[in-house]
């Protein structure tokens, strides 16, 4: 299906219709003062149709929540366990291209080899409507350098690109085509000058951006060619807040815990990962990476080296969430710039 156009006044109509067909309509919403965070606006309303910046949390917070009950333990004694399925139909609106790219990577991790049923279930019941960027979401963002913005190339069901009078619409999947078919009257063919307008904006944003040579970077990391002082500095900065791994749209690590009272309770999984020394501690108490700097190095290596080997691309999408939440002022962007220069 070719590119389409939807007028400003019709987008709200489309949103209202979409809300009718889902359980949760997850869209960016203005919370306290300038905070923008994905919220369920199906009943409450208040979604931002066009917005600046990005949500503090990414769609990951819905597909792999910070804590997630996996199953109910009715009786440990009798071995009675019941899965807690999440079959909610969700439409995500206004997802930024960086987060769309992150979803592709997460899909590979959770569905390609070992299939993670709770993730798969939620992913398959989700529809993603992307909204391309016409300005950087924060000073630290570097999506263009990571080839993850300002537009998504794939991974969305629909993608909107704002122009003066409305939005250009790209269709990326059968789910997306279905939305178009069901709301035919709202969409039209774009005029050539609309396409030109969109192109101008995107060009403007991408101006001066230099894609990083991620293969070269991965190679350097693989050969341990990073100056040791870089890792030393990072080690002295990290205060193990875990904000980076909690907000990163491509962090997939989790651990399992039981919350039991007497004979019953729940099993949950929760966000876990690199910064903790306990994350890789062995049963005997020793750890293969005893030094703290190596824990954060693990995070960097995973995003910029191992995943290049595994998926052919780095799993950092340049959203800058980890930078903006790091109490040690660690910047993966600065790391890349300094190392790759």
């Amino acid at each position, binding site marked *: 299906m070719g590119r389409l156009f939807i007028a400003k006044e019709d987008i709200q109509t489309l949103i209202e219709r979409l809300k009718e067909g889902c359980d*949760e309509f997850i869209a960016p919403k203005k*919370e*306290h*003062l*300038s*905070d923008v*965070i994905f*919220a*369920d606006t199906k009943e409450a309303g208040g979604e931002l149709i066009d917005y600046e910046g990005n949500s*503090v*949390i990414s769609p990951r*917070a819905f597909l792999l*929540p*910070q*804590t*997630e*009950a996996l199953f109910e333990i009715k009786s440990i004694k009798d071995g009675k366990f019941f899965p807690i399925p999440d079959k909610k139909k969700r439409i995500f609106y206004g997802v930024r291209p960086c987060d769309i790219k992150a979803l592709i990577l997460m899909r590979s991790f959770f569905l390609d080899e070992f299939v993670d049923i709770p993730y798969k279930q939620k992913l398959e019941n989700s529809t993603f409507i992307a909204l391309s960027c016409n300005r950087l979401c924060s000073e630290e963002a570097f999506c263009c350098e990571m080839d993850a913005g300002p537009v998504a190339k794939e991974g969305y069901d629909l993608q909107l690109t704002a122009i003066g009078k409305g939005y250009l619409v790209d269709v990326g999947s059968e789910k997306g085509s279905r939305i178009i078919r069901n709301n035919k009257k709202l969409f039209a063919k774009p005029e050539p000058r609309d396409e030109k307008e969109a192109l101008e904006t995107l060009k403007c944003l991408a101006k001066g951006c230099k894609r990083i040579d991620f293969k070269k970077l991965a190679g350097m990391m693989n050969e341990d060619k990073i100056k040791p002082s870089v890792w030393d500095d990072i080690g*002295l*900065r990290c*205060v*193990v*807040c*875990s*904000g980076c791994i*909690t907000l990163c749209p491509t962090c997939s690590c989790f*651990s399992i*815990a039981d*919350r*039991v*009272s007497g004979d019953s*309770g729940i099993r949950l999984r*929760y966000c*876990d990962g690199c910064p*903790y*020394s*306990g994350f890789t*501690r062995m049963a005997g*108490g020793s750890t293969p990476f005893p030094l703290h700097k190596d824990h954060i190095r693990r995070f960097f290596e995973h995003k910029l080296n191992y995943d290049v080997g595994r998926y052919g691309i780095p799993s950092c999408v340049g959203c800058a969430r980890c930078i*903006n*939440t*790091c*109490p*040690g*002022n660690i910047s993966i962007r600065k790391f890349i710039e300094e190392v790759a220069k």
Partner: protein
Amino acid sequence: MIKKVLTTCPYCGVGCGFYLDVRDGQIIGVIPSRANSVSKGYLCVKGWHAHEPIQHPDRLKKPLIKKNGTFKEASWENALDYVADRLKSIKERYGPDSLAVCASARCTNEENFLMMKFARAVLGTNNVDHCARTCHSATVAGLNQSFGSGASTNSYDELIHMDCIFIIGSNPTEAHPIVGWRVRTAIDNGAKIIVCDPRRILLAENASIYIQQYPGTDIALINAMINYIIREDIHDKDFIKNRTESFDALKEIVKDYTPESVKDITGVEPSLIKKAARLYAMSKRSCIMYSLGMTEHIVGTDNVMAMANLAMVTGHVGREFSGIYPMRGQNNVQGACDMGALPNVYSGYQPVTDEEARKKFERAWGVNLPAKGGLTLTDMMFKAIEGSLKCFYIIGEDQLRTDPDTHMIERALASLEFLVVQEIFLSETAKKADVVLPGASFAEKEGTFTCAERRFQRVRRAIEPLSGKTDGNIISELSRRLGYQMEQDPKKVCDEMAGLTPMYAGVSFERLEENGLQWPVLTKGHPGTPVVHLGKFKRGLGKFVPIKHKPPAEVPDKEYPFILSTGRILFHYNTGTMTRRVANLSREYPHNFVQINPIDAGNLNIKNRQKVRVKTRRGELVISAEVTDKIKKGVLWMPFHFSDEPTNVLTNSAFDPVCRIGEYKACAAHIEKI
């Protein structure tokens, strides 16, 4: 149903803002608020996991009454009737001063106001206190004498613009990580950091000057700095002349403290003291940051005044980008003090002995109020053992794990006729209670907390109280049973408090909506006060109080050759009732440990992670050793978060004579390998 509830972190005194992520009634995560002026989108590891303990299955949900030594669940009606009856009969039999209330720095301002009102107006005693006694009572007492106000002089946001930050007895990146972020940013902006700590803490690695003094020798260290500053003629003469008094007395006393003469006491090279003194004095924008490493000594109050002397002698106070930052330990320990949960003052530090203030509260509450100051938490324990204190009502505090010399506290609690504990988990202290009333966590209530920069911030309800009642509800329902009606709606309690307290007169829930307010807030239109003592100290002239070094109550000897100090680690919070129920935090540090220098360890043939016995005159503990060069030779250090391996069986029940704080930071100890 997805809901996001903006609230304030329940852990340390920094006061970070986040949203609780509530889905179908379950709190599943935490989302930092970038718009919050305190935390700006940053959180520490405890904050990121603040949701986990809230709906933990171990939460107390029903009142418990002890019968023949075992707890039986009871209805709220029965439990409250029973508690009210017992309180009434003890009061009738022994008089109101046989009862005492321990309010809670974990609860809201409004609840603390109700608690102190309950003690004073309902029970009829000024015996009300809370855990500030064991953390920053020295700050309130000390800074009050020096400046006329016992709280932080300046605001967090000034920190990143400082040229020099003098950090003593404080470990910001572990104990107050989002203030630690500001120190980190100051370093990145080019600030010079001076760290004084018996342990080489993380910030020491980036410090321009690191001083590793012995615990309990801070006055000698600071006096030597002042001595050097005066001798080098780099003191701020204009400031001293115009804004202070009694400089000559200070000059006289510091004469005996040269950097050379304190070398043996402090274990610090004189050249380092000189360098630090010069850097602090000569930097344009200098401030001091401290916490319990300074206060938890028998000379806690003196330590605080010594720092005030240092700040005044160099003119680094009473203006923007300067000052003294006491880092408060608990989410609302500032607020609990502010609300008058102290034995000598009503809200806003209005003395109970001031007849005018007392009359004002009497008129407002319609009762006669006791005119004599009450007992401190410390002395409540002594009076319980002596027998004159019969009943203790404790809210949200675990004295058996937090107070020094656990065995003494055990004796004190066992001596009581009636002990009520209001708690969210069955703490060690709660286990000793006659009645346990299930309180509510921060996520279950409306109200306000006040953070270390004197900022009132809103706390908002994300879920209904698991036990059906908030701590405020419980107090007010007990009060009604004792014949006194109390307003319990938090918003109205806040208004009542503001109406009775000139310093917070302009505070209301509406005005706190945006980003809170920093007190003093004198009128409804007052913008709040980021910097105190501008142009003039609260007391008029800043007072130099001459301070002499005094060694800790217990110093090393042959039998107990080490100095044992204690403190907080990043991953746990106080007695660990919450953090040890968070999977990742507990995994990071599941057990207690003792840090020992490799030289000492070598001499005693102690290896890393080996079991050792640590012994003091109060008790002993078997734990594992952490051999690390981060700690000074001759010093041992232990955290206090592990209820099953409780450090405070070892600490000393010696107290500051003024503020009655315990000496957790220095006692004599023996260590041996097993």
